[in-house]
């Protein structure tokens, strides 16, 4: 896989991951989980 395609794949993956996080975050917030950062 070329570098540019790999980078594009990573951007797509990051985008999907962020949107997954929005859904997972909803569940995490609903559970009231405490998170140290």
């Amino acid at each position: 896989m070329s570098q540019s395609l790999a980078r594009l794949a990573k951007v797509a993956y990051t985008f999907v991951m962020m949107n997954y996080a929005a859904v997972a975050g909803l569940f995490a917030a609903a559970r009231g989980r405490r998170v140290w950062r």
Partner: protein
Amino acid sequence: MTLVFWLSIAVIVYVYVGYPALLHVWATFRALRPAEESTPESSINPQSPIHQSPITPQSAIRTPQCDVSIVIAAHNEASRLTARIDNLLAQDYVAGRRQIIVVSDGSTDDTLDVLSRYAGVVDVVTVPRGGKALALNAGVARARFDIIVFADARQMFAPDALKELVASFSDPRIGAVSGELLLDAESPCRRAGADRRSIERRRAARELASDRRIEERRRTIRSTIADGVGLYWTYEKHIRKSESAIDSTLGATGAIYAIRRSLYQPLPADTILDDVLTPMRVVLAGYRVVFTERARAYDRAAIDADAEARRKVRTLAGNYQILALEPRLLLPWRNRVWLQYVSHKLGRLVVPHALLALFAASIVLSVEHAFYFSVLGAQVIFYVLAGCGALIEYRARIADSRYAAARLTEALREVV
């Protein structure tokens, strides 16, 4: 179903393209207006109790170097605190005008031992384990000065970061200032300045590794992953800059931000995003929250998707929580950056649902018209591409484990 299709597309395009473009145009026009009009004075609610209180004149700090209290909440950060405190002590700032406060939040490692070496230089606050929010409250309660700077144990400040951060407070309408966090993936130049020791460690590790090919491959893959995160961060920062130019950013960078102490409201114990809740409360109080890229902190991009995913889940969970903690943000007549808040923060929460709706609608409509079929195809290609990104991540982890095994083997040979 056609309505669902187009509505989903409209939401996705607006949040990720339309809103940033709108901000860009808005910020450009704002910059063209005369200086006195470009300030948000007219948008500050004159009925706001904070503006009627005597803190406003007190807040007009005009000296370039005012007294600041720096608060760091730390839980088991013994390995990082020495570098962190040394970094703060090395700031280009008058020593007598800064107070460094480290709050140990129920640390069970050597955090307190490390801090004991800085007796007389650092104010140490010890609290039982209660989370970052309570630790920050305890730190602010100990602060002696009118400007509070929040920092994390992990990141490092540029030498002039403190000076640049507090310079913005010369404007009495500004209640909080966010600095810029630079990730090491953003540019080779910044990376070199950001974490030289880390680079040296990696160089030493490379010398130790017996399989140079694995190391080279690992480095390349990691760089690609960090680039993805760095690209997203660059995009986010562009939005923040525009929001700041128009009125206020919708949050601050947790690693480097400052606030007038008089505007700080104690955080609830379970607050996830203190660096969003605190600045948004400043906005609700009628003050601006600005972003300055001149005040810089350095960090390394999360190098694996798991770490980044955990961070994002936490961030987005925090965005939901803030709606519960500050429902006033949803009221356009109480929140003068309502449009920005809805477009930026709420939009990000809505997009995943729009993506799912779009995909489902495309499947249903694809049998009716070639256009919908092509949109479905584009989505499939996109998700396949994302799958490839996941594969890259998986390969990086495999390379990591082989690399660790090679190091272990080498170390055992040394011993034997």
